[in-house]
């Protein structure tokens, strides 16, 4: 009896010992704080330490390290920038006031502007930043807010995001130049208009006997599917947030088109499955293409390279082959004005098309209002938005910069996205807090619309047989959003 007790105590003691030492070394003090301490100890006079919160991809791909290194070298002995070592979306409103937030924060415009509304991030002076001449007005607008008639700039734009089409170049039909390039511009038609994409997807599904698909996209994700709303005249918030705008114009027409396309997708488009499976399924050829954001290029690429590697070629070769075969382009530009995707594109006239307007976002830097070193933060942001670092960022992360000089120097897709922003093909979400309240209701509706296509296919009762039903649904969602924003508020 006694022995057992001793053994048990022994085990417990060992466990405790292990965990104690574990915490002694790294538990009690975080890396950042330790670094800060070191700086104080070695620097003699006190050096400014800035905590920088970048996004996860920048960190995992190594961009953040390069940025910090470059900055710390430039300002050696004066300012030191360190990784804030926090979660990418950690809430500044919750942490900042109590001193636990970062000094500089990199985030999408909607998130950043939510903070700005409550003044958690500082209003900035455009003149302090050298990048000001190179960035188009649209990008600045995303970070501008108006209080009592005065405009305040609260973030410095760095890159633009929009949903992109990822496809397999090696899976293009062999005779695409004859069959699928009627305008002869060396770009397959199904990358240019949605009717051909529909026709091509349909042919893949039919030829493979329901084992391969053309486009399978996350229909339930507003960010990815918003083109079917905005291109047809819908918008998010008009004059003020009382005008929801999601049922405006011919939004119902667009939604019917989405429903039609979902009909030749796979059920994965209804729930979140596709968001995780797209990388694997495009890589193994089950899907010809899918929709995602440009920063996920790496994921598509790596997955495909892995498959090539397993086939027995070297890593370098596999990497290169994957890079050659993964295509990333903007979504097809043309949508049918009447919403019928099944009309052959040859029968469509110029005026029967509408141009695709997708939802996009601008990511940029903001400065926490709770920082103790405002000047140093401005210095850092100015440095990080300079030509060299934005270019490096674009090269490492494949993002589309808002700086026109970088965009034109890199060209390619980055250049294209920049142009789209300039030409108004990217709809930027308004920078108000109320935007938070549209995501969940819209996701439910979109999922329902996609599901409706499968209800029809399986012979169940459909919910949206015609445009009127769709319009009613859109109006109902708008009302729900309105209620969520206003009915409960003071």
């Amino acid at each position, binding site marked *: 009896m006694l022995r057992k007790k001793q053994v048990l105590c022994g085990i417990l003691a060992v466990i405790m010992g292990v965990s104690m030492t574990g915490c002694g070394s790294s538990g009690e003090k975080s890396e950042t704080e330790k670094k800060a301490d070191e700086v104080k100890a070695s620097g003699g006079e006190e050096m400014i330490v800035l905590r920088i919160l970048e996004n996860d991809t920048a960190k995992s791909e190594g961009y953040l390290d390069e940025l910090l290194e470059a900055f710390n070298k430039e300002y050696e002995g004066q300012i030191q920038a360190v990784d804030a070592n926090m979660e990418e979306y950690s809430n500044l*409103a919750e942490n*900042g*006031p109590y001193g636990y937030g970062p000094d500089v924060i990199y985030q999408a415009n909607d998130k950043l502007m939510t903070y700005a509304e*409550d*003044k*958690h991030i*500082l*209003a900035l002076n455009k003149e302090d930043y050298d990048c000001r001449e190179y960035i188009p007005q649209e990008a600045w607008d995303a970070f501008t807010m108006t209080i009592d008639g005065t405009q305040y700039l609260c973030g410095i734009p760095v890159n633009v995001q929009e949903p992109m089409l990822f496809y397999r170049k090696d899976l293009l039909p062999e005779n695409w130049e004859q069959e699928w390039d009627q305008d002869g511009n060396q770009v397959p038609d199904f990358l240019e208009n949605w009717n051909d994409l529909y026709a091509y997807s349909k042919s893949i599904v039919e030829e493979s006997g329901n084992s391969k698909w053309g486009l399978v996209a996350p229909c339930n994700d507003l960010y990815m599917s918003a083109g079917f709303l905005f291109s047809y005249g819908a918008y998010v918030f008009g004059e003020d947030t009382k005008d929801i705008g999601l049922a405006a114009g011919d939004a119902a027409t667009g939604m019917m088109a989405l429903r039609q396309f979902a009909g030749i997708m*796979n*059920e*994965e488009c*209804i*729930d*979140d*499955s*596709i968001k*995780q*499976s797209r990388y694997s399924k495009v890589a193994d050829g089950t899907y010809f293409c899918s929709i995602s954001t440009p920063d996920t290029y790496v994921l598509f690429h790596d997955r495909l390279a892995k498959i090539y590697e397993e086939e027995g070629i070297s890593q370098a070769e596999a990497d290169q082959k994957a890079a050659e075969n993964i295509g990333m382009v903007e979504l097809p530009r043309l949508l049918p004005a009447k919403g019928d995707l099944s009309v052959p594109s040859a029968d469509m006239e110029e005026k029967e098309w509408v141009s695709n307007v997708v939802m996009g976002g601008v990511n940029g830097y903001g400065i926490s*209002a*709770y920082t103790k070193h405002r000047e140093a933060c401005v210095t850092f942001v100015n440095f990080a938005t300079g030509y060299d670092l934005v270019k490096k960022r674009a090269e490492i992360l494949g993002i589309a910069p808002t700086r026109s000089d970088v965009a034109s120097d890199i060209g390619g897709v980055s250049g294209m996205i920049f142009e789209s922003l300039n030409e108004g093909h990217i709809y930027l979400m308004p920078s108000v*807090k109320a935007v*938070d*309240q549209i995501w*969940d*209701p819209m*996701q*439910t509706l979109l*999922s*329902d619309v996609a*599901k409706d296509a*499968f*209800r029809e*296919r*399986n012979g169940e009762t459909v919910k949206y047989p015609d445009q009127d039903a769709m319009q009613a649904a859109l109006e*109902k969602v708008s009302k*729900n959003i309105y*209620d*969520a924003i206003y*009915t*409960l*508020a*003071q």
Partner: protein
Amino acid sequence: MKKRKLPFWCSCVVMGSGQLMYRQWIKGLLYLGCLALYLYYLFTSGITDIIGFFTLGTVEGDPWLGIQGDDSILMLLRGIMALLVTAGAVGLHILNIRDVAAMEDALAREKTLPGFREIMRRFVDRKFYVVALFLPIVGVLIFNVLPILFMTLIAFTNYGGDIVPPKLVDWIGFDNFRRIFQLSEVKSTFLRILGWNLLWAFTATFLSYFGGLLLALLLNKKCVRGKAFWRAFPIIAYAVPGFITLLGFKFMFSYGGPINHYITAAGGNAIGFLDIDAGWKARLIGLLVNTWISVPTSMLLATGMLSNMRADLYEAASLDGAGRWKQFTKLTLPFVIFSTTPTLITSFVGNFNNFGVFYFLRGGLYLDGYFLASDTDLLINWLYNLSIDNNYYGIGAAVSLIIFVITSIFSLYAYVNSSAFKKEDTYR
């Protein structure tokens, strides 16, 4: 009322002074020290905190201009703390008065008072329950009662929506409750969810409780060899954290998951187990998954309980010629139910407030006929949608207060009428 001596009146004014006059140095100094600490606290921050509790701040902060304003929410919390500390000080003062009175009475009977050590020793032995419960109660007061008080009070403020720090929050009385009852959607959603929530709590508790009990009995059978081995399987399941299991099951039942993979491979149509039309399908899956997660715990518990059951009871019964079923219904079941009724209630409460299952399996859906909720959401999920997703803390707190009142009346009634509460000594 007896006539009291001077030390008594002294203690009434200054805590501990009477004790000192009776030469109870350590006790007196301890009381005095507590008083000093309290006064120090009161004058350094206590008074401002209490005032802050009523005003909830007067200076609005502006981070842009570097104006450090009042943080209403923190002030509310500190106010509650100050009031609790004051209540504690008053309680201590009453104790001190009683102590002096008891000393006087003791002196009237005996010539001398016992020393401090002797007093403490006696106290620890005779009032063991006070000593034993002191730490638990303080802990619960700080980390359970305080947050509940805080949230209750939040229900009477306009916190939420646009009014979040640095903006100042204000007391608004019963406005939140009025708004809830004025909105027809809120009311109907509330009733619909409540119905499902009760059904869920009953079935889920029933399934996990009897599932665990039966499993424990099965493993307790004499013919089962290697009990530890068999018991390990549910334990392994238990060892995987709940949210991971839930995410795993969500994937398993999703359109791209393995179950649909086999269905489509066999030529069927993919089934939306958890999608928008799922309704009862999703509810059933939720129930089964929840059973999977909770059976191991209740099995562990039932095993512990069964081991405590006296074997002689069984022996006597089998001598009487009672069959196995009779043994189960007449001996095992009453015993186990008796010793686990409280658990049954806790597990009912736990299931009633089971946030995880549907948050992970089917979160983020707002269905027709529900205001910011779906047909599988429980009240707690709805609360989450209201207060966290949509930032209506005040409204959320008000709703939770209503739910809280309903559920606590209900479970209190069940508890007070249970045999475990009424006849605690049955098996003694």
